[in-house]
């Protein structure tokens, strides 16, 4: 088990290294790369000074090695626009993103599984059709638009919930206030993640329900509820858990947009600020952090997999 986790983490480090290589060279070899930032309206001497300050006067592979040397010691460089260390910015912004991510993942998982079970049990009847319509809508409606519509409805018209931010500024820590700020962004994000959970749950339940041992359980006269809970759910959860890894990837993409809609000061928002300001070190840091989170989530999912399905052992 420990060996398994260690091996997976090591593989993760290799993937992260590849991601950093890909991202770094993509950015630095592009015609509009960092060196072009300092071209406007400056004398040659000023330009050279700035290039030297950010180490941009050296060849690209040397720059990468310098960056990598820092990165393994936790130094991801300095933000061009904010002048602060990238690791400092990331540490500041990761909390809100994790809160939003965990909340929307939990909502999507709980409601997705419930709706998926309902759709499977009432297959081809109206509840199934309602659930499938909801899923198709969740896949098609742009989540940032849904966010705006929710702001119009709940903040502008009804005034029930705040329109943006993750807490009321100057109010001190207040759990109720934080939760009220969380409802809209987490709900909207969950709505766009849910279709995947619903689809997988429905298919898994239908498959298990058709299996021999469920027929046996029914034949020996068990009531329907215990067939569903004891015999069907547990097996059906395996593909759903497997799905969570993929959902985490979609979640990070989605949070970039949703954090901007709701002015949520997380990693996604930082990524957009950095992209608009062409703040290369920050973009690189954010991409790596997102990759690392995806890797960690996937390892966690695989471990959870063994809990749900005892046939799987990570020796």
């Amino acid at each position, binding site marked *: 088990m420990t060996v398994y986790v260690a091996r997976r983490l090591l593989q993760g480090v290799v*993937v992260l290294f590849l991601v950093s290589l890909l991202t770094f060279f993509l*950015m630095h070899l592009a015609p509009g790369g960092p060196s072009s930032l300092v071209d406007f309206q400056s004398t040659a001497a000023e330009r050279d000074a700035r290039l030297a300050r950010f180490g941009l006067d050296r060849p690209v592979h040397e720059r990468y090695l310098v960056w990598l040397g820092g990165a393994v010691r936790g130094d991801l460089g300095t933000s061009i626009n904010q002048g602060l260390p990238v690791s400092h910015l990331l540490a500041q912004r990761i909390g809100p993103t994790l809160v939003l991510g965990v909340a929307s993942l939990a909502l999507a998982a709980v409601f997705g599984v419930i709706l998926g079970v309902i759709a499977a049990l009432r297959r081809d009847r109206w509840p199934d059709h309602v659930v499938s319509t909801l899923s198709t809508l969740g896949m098609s409606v742009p989540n940032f638009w*849904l966010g705006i519509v929710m702001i*119009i409805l709940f903040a502008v018209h009804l005034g029930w919930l705040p329109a943006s931010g993750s807490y009321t500024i100057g109010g001190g820590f207040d759990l109720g206030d934080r939760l009220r700020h969380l409802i809209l962004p987490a709900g909207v994000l969950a709505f766009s993640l849910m279709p995947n959970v619903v689809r997988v749950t429905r298919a898994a339940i239908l498959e298990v329900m058709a299996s021999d041992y469920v027929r046996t359980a029914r034949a020996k006269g068990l009531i329907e509820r215990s067939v569903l809970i004891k015999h069907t759910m547990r097996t059906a959860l395996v593909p759903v858990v497997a799905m969570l890894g993929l959902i985490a990837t979609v979640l990070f993409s989605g949070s970039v*947009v949703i954090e*901007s809609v709701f002015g949520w000061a997380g990693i996604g928002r930082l990524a957009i600020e950095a992209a608009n300001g062409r703040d290369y070190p920050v973009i690189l840091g954010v991409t790596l952090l997102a990759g690392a989170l995806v890797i960690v989530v996937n390892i966690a999912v695989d471990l959870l997999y063994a809990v749900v399905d005892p046939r799987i052992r990570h020796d």
Partner: protein
Amino acid sequence: MTDAARGSPEAKKRTRSRLWKRVARQPLGIAASFLLLILILMVAIGPELVPHEPSRTNPLNVLQAPSVEHWLGTDELGRDVFSRILSGGRVSMSVGLFSMLVGLTLGVGIGGSAGYFGGRVETVLMRLVDAFMAIPAFFLILVIITSFGNHPVTIVVTVGLGFWAQMARIGHAEFKRFRNHEFVEASQALGGTHLRVMARHILPQVMPQATVLATLGVGWAILTEAALSYLGLGIQPPLASWGAMLQNAQGYLWRQPILAVWPGLAIAVTVLAFNLLGNSLRDVLDPRS
């Protein structure tokens, strides 16, 4: 059924009528096709017919509610929203279609080669696919847009790149499945080049699945482009795009909230039509799933 019987005209007719029966069982898909046809006609010829130029401003007539003169009202610069929706649709739909083509070509090309050749080619290409899958698509897109700028062609390629790895996985599996089939071996024995075998013999077998994914892919690409434009990183003014219109509208939520409704509705209806069509195509072309 023998191969000779399969080629006979009657057999072909039988297959075709079976296919039509399956199509007839998909009312949602048929409705979605008609809706798409109407949407495409609207954005293709609509901008030529509307009385208001999409980018003509009118400072005396800003943020108007919908009226007979301006069907969907006017925006913060007094431009006609209906005209802008139509011309924005041209941009959004073209980006969606071309991005899908980029993703599909790259994915089937690279994934297909990996599956067909196997061995070291397969290992290298599929590890590349894994690395791309590890980065959440949106971050990859941000990296590329920041580096290469937001020229429309760059956006098309970038959005396509966010989608190719998924296509490659499927191309890989399918080409691998057909690699050892007799018709492939026969063609190779007759001296067919690898390219010919892949393009003429395996590709047609993969087409049904690819069509389904391509249809769903257009929806995804339209959503992604809209999100990019909404964030200010996509198609730039003066070109209208649905995402950028939403971004502008968000600044006027308290004064004219209806302004934020139209572009989102346009995106949602278009993507919904592509998704419904894709799901129906899956049921018709790929009965296994």
